[in-house]
């Protein structure tokens, strides 16, 4: 069995915040807690969850824009945390990021051509002509006309800017693109165009995506596999079809039931969740979801559930719906 393109093992990120009068008391924000998953080439893994559940932190950890507290991120079997600065620069060529906000992620002072060719120019010298050709190719790939070459981001629409951001990510021919809420700043019609563009690129170039979103309809459209996150942990990891047809974890169930369905004749069945997402500074004991969970039992209050494989090939972290049969130490997803 070949190793997957991207493998994440026990990824954890705690942010320390100082408070109190003398800044002596240190508390931890548990942004990401023991997250493991893998992504195969030309596949799309979607990560969904409410805001504040650690989705964007995962994106930043994958790009190593922030250092993980513990855990490993393996690209083709190489741990990116073990690389020094120069090695990291070369490894970053293999994975690129598309940012959430197409306004602030493009330098307003540069032209479209400068923006898309910059990554390549970081690694090799290009003549003026090569720059124009490369920029033209990249712009065409994302469906922008080459007339845009000398425009600045402020002279483009939101959708055009996001396409420009995608073109920049494509410039280095990455095998993995991390898209952090890449379409949530766009109108629905433009969202669809950009999503289709991403799917086309995946088919043509075999790029794998880690697609982070809070929007279930987007995720259903684009994802092969879906990881549902709650308060820094993955609670369910399943293929898109099985998850949407039959969510197992009570949180996934509630999330999918709460998503609006554009069909007025379909009645809402599920009872909406009560309460708020707890603070990651002081998460509930045991299963973080237990205070809001309709199925919670005593065990959920004391014991953290780990992702457990179920017979139909998914992973669920729930004591009630997918009770672990094996002793819990050995079944962590390593």
């Amino acid at each position, binding site marked *: 069995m070949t190793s997957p393109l991207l493998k994440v093992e026990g990824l954890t990120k705690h942010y320390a915040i100082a408070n109190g009068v003398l800044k002596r008391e240190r508390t931890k924000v548990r942004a990401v807690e023991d997250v493991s998953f893998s992504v195969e080439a030309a596949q799309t893994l979607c990560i969904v969850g409410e805001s504040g559940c650690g989705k964007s932190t995962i994106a930043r950890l994958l790009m190593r824009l922030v250092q993980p507290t513990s855990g490993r991120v393996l690209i083709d079997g190489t741990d990116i945390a073990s690389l020094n600065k120069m090695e990291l620069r070369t490894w970053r060529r293999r994975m690129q990021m598309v940012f959430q906000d197409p306004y602030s992620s493009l330098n307003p002072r540069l032209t479209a051509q400068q923006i898309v060719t*910059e990554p390549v120019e970081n690694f090799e010298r290009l003549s003026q002509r090569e720059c124009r050709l490369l920029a033209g190719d990249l712009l065409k790939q994302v469906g922008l006309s080459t007339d845009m070459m000398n425009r600045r981001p*402020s002279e483009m629409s939101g959708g055009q800017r996001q396409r420009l951001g995608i073109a920049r990510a494509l410039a280095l021919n990455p095998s993995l693109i991390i898209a952090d809420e890449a379409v949530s700043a766009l109108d629905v019609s433009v969202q669809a165009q950009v999503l289709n563009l991403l799917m086309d690129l995946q088919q043509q170039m075999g790029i794998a995506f880690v697609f982070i979103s809070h929007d279930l309809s987007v995720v259903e459209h684009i994802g092969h596999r879906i990881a549902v996150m709650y308060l820094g942990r993955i609670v369910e990891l399943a293929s898109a079809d099985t998850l949407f047809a039959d969510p197992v974890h009570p949180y996934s169930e509630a999330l999918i039931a709460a998503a609006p369905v554009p069909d007025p004749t379909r009645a809402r069945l599920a009872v909406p969740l009560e309460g708020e997402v707890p603070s990651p500074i002081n998460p509930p004991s045991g299963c973080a979801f237990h205070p809001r969970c309709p199925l919670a039992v005593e065990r959920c209050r004391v014991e953290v559930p780990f992702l457990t494989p179920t017979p139909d090939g998914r992973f669920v972290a729930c004591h009630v719906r997918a009770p672990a049969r094996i002793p819990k130490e050995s079944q962590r997803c390593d």
Partner: protein
Amino acid sequence: MALISSQPDDLTMQQVSSSAHFPKVRQFPLIAAGGGLLALLITLAITAPLYAGDPMIMDPFKRLQPPSAQAWLGTDYLGRDIFARTVFGTRISLVVGVATTLAAAFFGLLIGVTAGYYRAVDNIALRIMDGLMSIPTILLAIALASLTGPGIGILVFAISVTKIPAVTRLVRSVVLSVRERPYVEAALCGGARMPKILWRHVLPSTIPVLMVQGANVCASAILIEAGLSFLGVGVPPDIASWGNMISTGRLYLSIAPLSVFAPGICLAVTVLAANLLGDGLRDFFDPRSKRTS
């Protein structure tokens, strides 16, 4: 840049895209007034030998004379031409103003960017800046002048040392806000090296504050130079400087008032020009501040 101003919806775009594009300079009379005045003064200072006499020649027989065809503004207590001395005094003021501005901007930028980008340096650099800020310019200049004797170099050094902290703090604050922008992270993801990130993505954002602060530093350096020359610790007394002209002229104020008023008015006009330019640049780079005022 030629594309920009012809776009009709440019103004609305500007507000969205922060400081990418700027409106036309022409719309800002303060810049035109301040810049024009300064340009005029610089031209006059450079071409001084073409139309003004020698500011150093003393003539005891023609002391404290009223304006005449030879000496347009009369002569001072040593018989020197007040017009020539005023015109040549412009050189000292402008040289000190510009040199101080350049030195303060250069070192302020260097330290500010380093402190803003490399967090480890930040605390140390800022404490040193706090220390420099607490040094009174005049005392430092007097101390240095008493060590080496008065001179322009000492003046520029003393004034710029005490102006660097203000520039540093401004630059640092801009760098701190820019380094967190997603486009800087995007550049990092694209494999950009640190010097390139600083040069291409961080430094351009500091230019507006540098220019505005530079104009203010220039104005106050000119004033401080005049003050120090007035006290006798600025440029050597034989070299014409507005400060030492006022200082010696005030003793003969009732006989030859122009020996005080000529350099005084020039000083006021120059400082005003630099301040106008600074205010104009501020409005230019930050359109909001103009609209609210």
